[in-house]
């Protein structure tokens, strides 16, 4: 049984009766059993997965209608609710929280007969970019277990990369899907803001975050997008994509397309190996008939500061709900005064979450909002104008997903400001609402490099076509685990 096949091949194999969903899911669970001690991608595993797969095999055999996923084993970031399953956000605060309902993306995947093999690790409440801030311990990069897998959807990237599932859902607030995808050599896709419902995604910074797939191939990302995108009455920020088919015409090529190389994302501090891979990607796109030239987005220099200011503000507000009365860990109310009770309960948050809540209280407060929050919102507006201007001239933009190589676990954990800068190339897509994708492109000294493409709002189909074209130009080695 080959667990390494892409999602679309899995579907074909089960459909044709060459493999059974039950066998594949059973082997996937065995794989998790054998490698996850080393990698720590999973926070919980679905014990009923094999039984659920068996039901799908029966439907295939009897010729009943089967959903498009045909029992495909998928992992889900543990900040997305699956009914009657634990959803911990990798936080002690929600250690025992069992979700009372399904997120919309889960409902849609269930309708298409996906199997959820388990919930995967993240930085606590998705705040981080190494998965080291998980309250339950870090995930490890399957390419070299001494290295971080990226984050915050680290468990998602690790589980796809190490063949512990066929695909995964993560969430991307400032690069949390694309960054781990780049560090673990998987595809990671953040759609246009509003393309995928956030109902059932535990809120961190609502105004810019999106759920997105992590997959082995660009086609697989398009396949999953077809299932989970679209209007949702439970999320008023969703947009009508008119049931766009992102998979059809994905091989249209990029001949004649104009691609802008974002100057500010290949400048100071970029690792030479990342720069060289980026140049290589550009010349490959040119050889396919694309026209590439440099473009400047001046506000990128301020984007990380604006991003942290805005997200901390929203987080400070969103996390106010964890008061141990509605959610939280159990201790009795007797003997406490109201405020001290809540403060005591909130001691259960981890250090990064506490830091961001303090910042989130500070930057929008009276006397400081003008210097921080309002200025950050202005940077966001100006950055959006700049990128809209760029998309008048270019069809797509390109930059490395992360300007540096994956680093060792523990290397940056005590220096939050140096961690900030790892986000420099990814936050722009979130602040402006544009779709962006990380495509695995190179391996340097045994560690992966991803290349990021961005497109204008609602041009997700074009973006996936370009990503597919880029993906076809390279053959990468297999993960050494």
């Amino acid at each position: 049984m080959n667990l390494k096949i892409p999602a679309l091949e899995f579907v074909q194999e089960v459909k044709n009766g060459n493999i059974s969903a039950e066998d594949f899911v059973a082997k996937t669970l065995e794989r998790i059993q054998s490698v996850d001690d080393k990698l720590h991608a999973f926070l919980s595993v679905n014990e009923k997965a094999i039984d659920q797969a068996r039901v799908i095999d029966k439907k295939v055999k009897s010729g009943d209608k089967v959903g498009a996923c045909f029992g495909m084993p998928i992992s889900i970031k543990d900040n997305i609710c699956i009914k009657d399953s634990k959803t911990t956000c990798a936080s002690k605060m929600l250690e025992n929280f069992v979700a009372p309902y399904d997120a919309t993306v889960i409902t849609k995947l269930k309708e298409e007969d996906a199997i959820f093999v388990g919930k995967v690790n993240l930085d606590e409440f998705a705040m981080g970019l190494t998965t080291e801030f998980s309250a339950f311990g870090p995930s490890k990069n399957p390419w070299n277990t001494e290295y971080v897998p990226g984050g915050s959807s680290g468990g998602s990237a690790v589980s796809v990369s190490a063949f512990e599932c066929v695909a995964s859902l993560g969430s991307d607030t400032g690069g949390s899907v694309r960054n781990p995808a780049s560090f673990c050599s998987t595809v990671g896709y953040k759609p246009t803001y509003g393309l995928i419902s956030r109902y059932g995604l535990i809120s961190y910074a609502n105004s810019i975050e999106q759920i997105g797939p992590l997959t082995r191939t660009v086609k697989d990302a398009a396949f999953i997008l077809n299932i989970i995108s679209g209007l949702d009455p439970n999320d008023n920020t969703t947009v009508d994509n008119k049931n766009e088919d992102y998979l059809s015409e994905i091989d249209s090529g990029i001949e004649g397309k104009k691609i802008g190389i974002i100057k500010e994302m290949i400048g100071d501090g970029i690792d030479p190996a990342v720069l060289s891979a980026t140049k290589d990607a550009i010349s490959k796109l040119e050889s396919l008939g694309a026209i590439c030239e440099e473009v400047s987005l001046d506000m990128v220099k301020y984007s990380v500061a604006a991003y942290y200011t805005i997200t901390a503000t929203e987080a400070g507000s969103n996390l106010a709900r964890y008061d141990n009365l509605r959610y939280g860990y159990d201790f009795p109310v007797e003997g406490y005064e109201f405020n001290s009770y809540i403060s005591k309960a909130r001691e259960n948050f981890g250090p990064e979450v506490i830091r961001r809540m303090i910042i989130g209280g500070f930057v929008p407060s009276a006397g400081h909002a003008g210097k921080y929050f309002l200025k950050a919102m202005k940077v966001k507006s100006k950055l959006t104008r700049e990128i809209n201007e760029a998309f008048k001239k270019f069809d797509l933009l390109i930059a490395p997903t992360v300007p540096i190589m994956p680093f060792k676990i523990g290397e940056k954990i005590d220096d939050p400001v140096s961690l900030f800068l790892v986000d420099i190339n990814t936050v722009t897509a979130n602040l402006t609402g544009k779709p962006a994708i990380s495509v695995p492109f190179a391996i340097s000294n045994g560690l992966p490099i991803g290349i990021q493409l961005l497109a204008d709002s609602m041009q997700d189909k074009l973006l996936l076509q370009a990503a597919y074209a880029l993906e076809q130009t390279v053959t990468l080695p297999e993960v050494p685990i």
Partner: protein
Amino acid sequence: MVTEEEIKHVAKLMRIEIDDYAEYVNKVHAMIDYFDVLDSAGVESEEITMQEIPISNLREDKYIPFNEKLIEKLKNYKGTYVRAPKMS
């Protein structure tokens, strides 16, 4: 310049009580100091633009009762009331 006292005050407002203040204050300080870069962005005259959502996208204003079992997720409740500590 942000002071330690300001950070402590905000932490209290955010209902965060921590033993090791020094540990947090230093890092939070460094993070907030980094935001000074926003002063160089030259955006003072920039308008803050908001995304407009057409009203037709809003869902119908209809009461849809949630599952009654939801209340069981609460640790301390009586009937449909949440039990909370005394306000001082």
